[in-house]
């Protein structure tokens, strides 16, 4: 009895500190939104200033056929009178039939001031990311579990991970700066949705969610979603850029806005390749996520596979991405057709995330809308 009373006391003091942490988490999340908004404006400035420089590399590349491919690759440089032999250089040639278009210079379009704003935007993104990460961490501390118990928590974790993926790719010196504006816009949307519609007071989990498979399954699911999302953004941009390039190729005249924006993006082939790599890289992890979910379901509900709506849609998403990968491996389905499949696959993922939680009831619905 006494121990039970002590326990109860414990629980109430704990509850007080938890509520304190929870409100701190909310403050941090709102602060990160403020910083993301600043970053958003900096990206906008980067794009605006970038439009000052008129680049038309695409049209040039498509109209003038230069034959640089067979140029000799060993060059001799005169350095201070003595000939220094340079190491051989590797000449890269695109596959036959694909357009040979150089990548755009990025959002700043080569404009120095634009570039400066772009760098400011990235710094702000890093700052906002750190604040948001702290918000997610305090939320986790307030509920004393991983912050993946309801859709509010999914959303804040999801956007944090998506930004982390973007910043990691940047840190690895991948050519992804062009993603910034598109990503941060949707991150703001995602967070806005989280704090208005989806907000849930912090609360512990029901026993069915107590399992280390939760940590494995849900963390990989969120990570996969964030990476698929990056892939989907690249796919959409690919579709636009590809349409633009084929219009130019056929002698069409795209609008000035389209020209200004699309000229600065990487070539459609690069976007397509980027999207494919991102999706292919995360597909095994997505497979693992579903299997981990099945193992968890096996220990929580007694059956590995219940055709519960969430499971069904995970499976549909998985099959859709498998279709996409197959399409890429088959001639005749490359390019736009494969890109449409990738969009369908990501649509399935989105529906699984929002649609199933909101419109369909199943065993997963206790995860809280």
């Amino acid at each position, binding site marked *: 009895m006494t121990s039970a009373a002590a326990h109860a006391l414990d629980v109430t003091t704990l509850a007080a500190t938890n509520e304190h942490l929870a409100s701190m988490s909310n403050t941090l999340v709102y602060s990160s939104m403020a910083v993301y908004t600043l970053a958003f404006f900096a990206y906008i400035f980067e794009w605006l200033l970038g439009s000052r420089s008129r680049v038309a590399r695409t049209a040039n590349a498509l109209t003038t056929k230069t034959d640089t491919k067979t140029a000799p690759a060993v060059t001799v440089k005169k350095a201070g009178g003595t000939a220094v032999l340079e190491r051989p250089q590797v000449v890269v040639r695109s596959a036959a039939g694909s357009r040979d278009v150089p990548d755009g210079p990025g959002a700043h379009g080569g404009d120095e001031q634009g570039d400066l704003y772009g760098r400011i935007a990235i710094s702000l993104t890093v700052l906002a990311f750190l604040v948001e990460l702290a918000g997610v961490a305090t939320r986790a501390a307030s509920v004393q579990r991983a912050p993946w118990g309801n859709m509010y928590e999914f959303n804040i974790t999801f956007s944090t991970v998506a930004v982390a993926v973007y910043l990691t790719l940047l840190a690895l010196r991948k050519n992804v700066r062009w993603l910034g504006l598109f990503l941060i816009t949707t991150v703001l949307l995602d967070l806005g949705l989280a704090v208005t519609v989806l907000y849930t007071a912090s609360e*512990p989990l029901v026993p*069915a969610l107590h399992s280390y498979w939760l940590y494995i399954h849900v963390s990989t699911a969120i990570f996969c979603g964030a990476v698929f999302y990056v892939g989907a953004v690249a796919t959409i941009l690919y579709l636009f850029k590809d349409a633009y390039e084929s219009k130019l190729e056929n002698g069409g005249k795209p609008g000035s806005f389209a020209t200004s924006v699309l000229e600065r993006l990487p070539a459609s082939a690069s976007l397509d390749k980027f999207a494919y790599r991102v999706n292919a890289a995360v597909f095994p992890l997505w497979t693992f996520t579903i299997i981990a979910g099945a193992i968890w379901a096996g220990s929580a509900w007694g059956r590995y596979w219940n055709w519960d709506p969430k499971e069904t849609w995970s499976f549909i998403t998985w099959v859709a991405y498998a279709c996409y990968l197959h399409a890429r491996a088959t001639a005749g*389905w490359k390019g736009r057709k494969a890109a449409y499949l990738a969009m369908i696959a990501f649509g399935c993922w989105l529906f699984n995330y929002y649609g199933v939680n909101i419109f369909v009831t199943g065993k997963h619905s206790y995860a809280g809308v």
Partner: protein
Amino acid sequence: MSDTTTDTTTDNGEQDQQDLGAAGSQLSTAPAEPPAAPGLGVIGWARWFWRQLTSMRVALLLLLLLSLGAIPGSLIPQSGADINKVADFQKTHKTLSPIYDRLGLFHVYSSVWFSAIYILLFVSLVGCIIPRAWQFVGQLRGRPPGAPKRLDRLPAYTTWRTAAAPEEVREAALGLLKKRRFRAHLAGDAVAAEKGYVREFGNLVFHIALIVLLIAFASGQMYKSDGTKLVVEGDGFANSILQYDDFKSGSMFSTDDLVPFSFDLKNFHATYQTSGPSKGTPVTFAADIDYSEGAYGRSKRTTIKVNEPLHIGDAKVYLVSHGYAPVITVRDSKGKVVYHDAVPMLPLDANISSQGVVKVMDGYRSAQGVSEQLGIQLFFVPTYGGGSSVLSTFPALENPVLNLAPYHGDLGVNSGIPQSVYQLDKTHLKEFKDSAGKQFRDNLKPGQTMQLPNGAGSVTFEKGVREWAGFEIVQEPGSSWALGGALAAIFGLAASLFIQRRRVWVRAVPGPDGVTVVEMAGLGRSESAKVPEELGDLAGILYDQAPGAPDPDDSSPSPSPDPEVVPAEGAEKR
């Protein structure tokens, strides 16, 4: 190393004629697209059909169909998941339901058309894997194809002039490539090498693992059994079909397959959130049991929790539900005990307001001495919040109250129609009336007794409310195969997506002026940044062994910086 040169020098001339097609051949085992029109006759058609079925395009179509086919099952109630929802749906959708029913949309995943899709996919998969596996074995036993005539046509290319002799360069290249675990051999004036066979292997493993998964799944469905049992604290269960409340099994299951074991539920305990916005949310559920394996096994104690089932052989015992079982004693007009038992109550809400019934079948005599049956409708709240609210305000036993509404007459249990133990058939029952002529009912706390009107006996709500736990006992053979298949699938998939299969050729021949010209080229299965990077890396090493010689016309300007040219050390194309 040198023995590899012997048998390939003869087809030197032929290999010079090879174009890119041959160099890129068999870089994957993807099937060729089938011919458009069938040949003549039945065999022609059969072969055409088989070719179509095992083509990538049809596999793609079947995959798409499979995902489309899975959608309705997630939107329409499924009888396998919740039969009550299906009944509700059928009540509200009078016109749609018969159509849905005919299409099997209430049991999509066991419907004919859904099975047809995955069986076709399965056949397609098998038809695809077997020839690919053969082809792959052939590739492993064969050799990478010789260098194409024009290496500078390949996706990644580099060249330089060196003072080293061609044979020296080739020998060095062969050694380097072999050290890098390429399969390399000398073919004519060039070294041909290939690496990344694990990709193909992983891909085959993945597709075979899918088959294993499917078979494990299907056999699991056929041999599985799945039943539920509600056990009150102090009671027990032995694993035989008769003891189940509800039992389902696959088509190949036989009762002998049930793993013999038994257990007694000693104690069930639950804890709940006691404060905050989520007050009443469960925190832990645990059932302490004594169990014994086999018919005469030694008794062991353990605890089953929600995510921690008990494994006994192939069987798993899950804790799936819980509730309360008030202990009720019924006495007749003479004070004789005619009923004494714990009555499991079905929870109605999250705070475990619950309902149940007591059925006194025989032994009861009314005040007039007439042999009758008694039925009592029970409504139980573990925590009565006071006031007029009849619902429980907290799921734990804090202030339990039991509401009783007694009836007498004929329970109808002998009519032959099976009855629920949680419901009263009131057609032949009469209410006990209070002094005002209304249905007699009363609220009791533990230990209290209610006297039935007119000396008809008494009902006691005994102290010490017991709890019950619902168990689900599942046997699903083949799940370890499914798990093994799933893990193999992941590893196969990772290998097939992350490993590049690529070829490298190094040609070294004397140029027109006698100086050796080295040419290197790389070809990947798909365009990849890794191929030029690796080629640059290899070229850098080989260059150190065969350093460059100056160009004949020293004054040639270096080519303008071209985005297509990357440094030998290899940075990605930007």
